Every structure is written in structure tokens, then in C-alpha cells.
């Protein structure tokens, strides 16, 4: 594979994503785990840019980094106890690690055997965002899922407020 700026960018973003993921699941300090989560989400946004989906990258930064990472961090800060010495993994962690490695192996095998060496054949049409916007408002498009998603978000908002109130 030739070293182009795109491959360098992909390598950096993959390191961010995978390294951050590793930090999230294995970090002893929960605040550091939240920071690693923010790093992973930022890497995923970078991967979206590489995959020529800039709208998704911006929405990823806005929703995940600007809201969900902040929520997670605030929850960690609010629910801190006087920490004794508690481990951060429970009794079944060897089995969990085995399952994770097994799943990774199976997925890796399937991916490499089926999709190795697939390169993109068509270019992304330049008016993707306009068409996406129009599809969210048309019957043949995604109008119904859009409305259902807004009802879901309303229900989640009301539910979160009711549950978290004293």
C-alpha cells in the first residue's frame, strides 16, 4: 500500500479509535476512562471524514462529544464516593476477555475472507446532503422514521427528567 496522506490520516485515526477504546475498558480511574471515550469519539469523527461523510462527522462531534461525553463525565463526577480500594473489573473478567477475543477473531476472519481488497467503485454524489434533507421530509423517504425518532427523543427527555428528579 502506498503512503498517501489518506493512509497516514487513516492510521492516525485508527490509533486514536483503538487506543482510546483500550483506555476506556481498562482504565482504573473513571475520569481517565471518560477522557479516553472522548478521544475515541473524536477518532470516529475523523474516520467519518475519511469516509467522505462530513455531515455525519459534524453530527458525531456535536452529539457525542458535545453532549454524551459531557453527560458521562458529569455523571462520573456526581456519583463519586469516597473511593476505597475497589477493583474496576468484576469476577468474570477472564471469561469476558475470552469472549471478546473470540468475537474479534470470528469477526476478523469473516471480514478478511469476504471483504478483503474491496475498493470503492463509485464516487460519492456531491448533492448527498441535499438529497438526505429531502428524503427526511418525503413519504418515499424517511419521513416516518424521522417522526418516530423525534417521539423517541421526546420520550427519553421526559423520562430522564422524571427519573433524575428527586
Amino acid at each position: 500500500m502506498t503512503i498517501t496522506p489518506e493512509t497516514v490520516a487513516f492510521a492516525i485515526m485508527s490509533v486514536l479509535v483503538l487506543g482510546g477504546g483500550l483506555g476506556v475498558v481498562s482504565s482504573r480511574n473513571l475520569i481517565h476512562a471518560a477522557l479516553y471515550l472522548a478521544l475515541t469519539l473524536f477518532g470516529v469523527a475523523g474516520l467519518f471524514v475519511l469516509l467522505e461523510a462530513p455531515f455525519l462527522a459534524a453530527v458525531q462531534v456535536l452529539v457525542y462529544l458535545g453532549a454524551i461525553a459531557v453527560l458521562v463525565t458529569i455523571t462520573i463526577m456526581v456519583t463519586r464516593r469516597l473511593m476505597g480500594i475497589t477493583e474496576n473489573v468484576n469476577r468474570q473478567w477472564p471469561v469476558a476477555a475470552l469472549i471478546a477475543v473470540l468475537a474479534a477473531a470470528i469477526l476478523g476472519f469473516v471480514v478478511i475472507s469476504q471483504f478483503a481488497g474491496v475498493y470503492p467503485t463509485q464516487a460519492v454524489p456531491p448533492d448527498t446532503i441535499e438529497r438526505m434533507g429531502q428524503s427526511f421530509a418525503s413519504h418515499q423517504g424517511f419521513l416516518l422514521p424521522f417522526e418516530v425518532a423525534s417521539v423517541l427523543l421526546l420520550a427519553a427527555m421526559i423520562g430522564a427528567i422524571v427519573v433524575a428528579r428527586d
Partner: protein
Amino acid sequence: MADVLASLADIYTTIGNLLTRLFVDVLGASPELASGIIKFLGAGLLATSVLLILVFNIWFERKVMARIQDRIGPNRVGPWGIFQTVADLAKLFTKEIIIPDGADLVPFMIAPVISVMSVVLIWAVVPFAPTLIGTDLNIGALYFVAVSSLGVVSILLAGWSSNNKYALLGAFRGVAMLVSYEVPFVLALLVPVILSGSMRMGDIVRAQSIPFLVVMPVAALIFWIASVAEVGRQPFDVIEGESEIVSGYHIEYSGFAFAMFYAAEWAHGFTVCALMTVLFLGGWRGPGAEQIPTLGIVYFLGKTFLVYFFQVWTRAILPRMRIDHILSFSWKFLVPLSLVLLVLSVLADKLGQLYIPGYAVAGSFVDLLPRTALLLVVNLIVGGLAALWVAGLGRRERRRQEAALSVASIEGRAAQQAR
């Protein structure tokens, strides 16, 4: 001679061509490598100049605030005190960075960096002139909202890692305020996007034959209020209210780290003025700006400093609002107002397109006049009703308090007579 004038008229393209020829012909690089190097140089120049224009801004603000407060302001260091900021920054750079005991080192050091980063990244999509823009993303408007929401993370990190209850309280209040005002910010930002039909900043500027401030003044006002709150300036500066919470999440920062937060906050203040200019005042548009692109940046900076002057003015005359007033103002007034405004304006626009002959959504000054008139009327109606409702609220609140007082006074007299 005409050749030199023509190249001076579009000085940005000229410089770009000169640099490309320098790299390709003289240094023998490939065109892609040359363009990559030029882009890096441009990005570095932009980031540096954003932080350098801060030096002028801080002096400007201190002088204007001083004059409004009937005093002189800095006048010792240099003629009219123009080197005052340099002296302040030199002092900040040479101070020791004191790391509090029990502070978490990694978030403590990263927070100022993320803060500055979230401000400087916004300038990548600001159009200075027809041919001078960092990168004309087709999602420009969404990009800068996403990037400015990164600043929230940095406040939280700074507050937590200082190991200080006041810093944490200040950080939570700051995050609550920032997150609350992002909603009217985005809703008011949708207005130029809808009016110009595109999220590209370049297209938004080009669609402003009539500045959107005239077309939708209430939306511009909502955007202005929300962006001043996003920055954390008076009257919304509970984040770093010096008399309340002893500079909030900044408490434990000193030296260069504090200088970065300081720079980030002032740069953010200037950045939202630039955004207001681009979105509502027409950016680089002005007489002769299309034919002579070099003039674009002159108009842009002029308009931005005008808006910045207004920001300093409001800062100097308005008192600080209480945090619960700030939050209820956002959620109970600005969000419903901006939603209603958005729905009614788009409805009026669509009805106008269907039923009014000669109604254009793009074009020159004269073409856009019917649309401007219709949307201006809708804005004024919505704004007038909102103002009447707020006034009625004040009157109802006063009547309720008078009633409570009178009942209490009657009861008090009755209790006294019973004794």
C-alpha cells in the same frame, strides 16, 4: 501596469500563485506537495493571526470600557497604552504554573489546550474575502457549532481536575449555561441557512444582497444573545464572575495555562462577532468587493469590529444575571421564541413563494425586496408579541408581589391586634 493592478485586486490568488510557483519551479516539488505545504502555511498563519489580533482586541476593549466608565484606561505603556496587553501577556508567561495538590495532571494540562483549540478551529470556515477562506466546507455552519461544543468538555475538565469545590461548582454552572444556550444558538443559526439554502459559509455570504439582519432582525437578536452567552461575557459571565465564585473554574490556573484560558475566552468573543458578521451582516460584502476581492477583508474586519464594539458596550453597561435567571431566560423564553419564529418565517416564506408574484429567493437587491418585506413584517409581529408578553409578565409578577405584600400586611396587623 493594468496587469499589476489586476493582480493586486485579487491579492490572495496572486500570493497563492507566487507561492505555488516558488515551490514547484524553484524547489522542484510536485504540485500536490506544494499545495499541501501552502495549506499548512495558511492554517498556521490563520491560527497565529487569530491569537495576535487578540493583543489589539484586549487594548480596544479596555479603552472603550474605560471611556464608558468615565476614566481613561491604560495609558502608561506606549502611546495611548497600546503595549499594555503585551506587558500583561509577558507577565503571565513568566509566572509559575502552580499545580494544586491532588489535582489530576492530565486533564489539568489538557483543558486549556482544548479550550483554545475549539476557538481557533472555528476560523477555518470564516470567509474573509471572495477568494480567501480556510476551507469552504459544504457543512460550514454545522461545523462551527460542532467545534464550539468542544469547549464544554474543556470547562468540565478544568473544573474537575482543580480538586477545588468552587472550581467544580463554577464548572457545572458554566456547563449548564453553555448547553442551555446552544439550543437558541443553533435555532437562530438555522435562519441564515434556510434563507440562503446552503450550509456553506461562502454561499451564505453570497446570498446576502440584503443583509439578513434587515430580513430577520429578531433571529439576529436571538443569535447575538445566545452567542454572547456561549462566550461567557457580561451579562452572562457567571462562569468567571469575579465577585461571586472567584473566577470559577479558572481558580487554580496561573501563568501560561491561565493565559491560554484568557486568550481562548477573548478570542471566542471576537470569533462570535466574526460569525455574526458572516451570518447576518453580509460578511465581506460591500461596494466593489466582488470586483476587487482584496477589499473583502477590509469590509469584513470593519463590520466585525463594529459588532465587537457593541459587545464591549453591552459588557460595560449591563450587570451580571443570576444563574437561574439565565437558564430560565434561555429555556422559557429564547427557545420557544426561536422555534415559533422559525416555523412562522418558513411558513410565510413558502406561502409567499406560492402566492406572491415576483417573489424571489435569490438574486440582487431589488429581487429580494418582496421577501425581505414579508419576513421583516413576520419578525416584527413575532418580536412585538414576545415583547408584549414579557412586559405583561413583569406586570403580572409585580401585581402578584403586591398582593402578597398586602395580604401579609393585613395579616400582620390582624395578628398584632389579636395580641
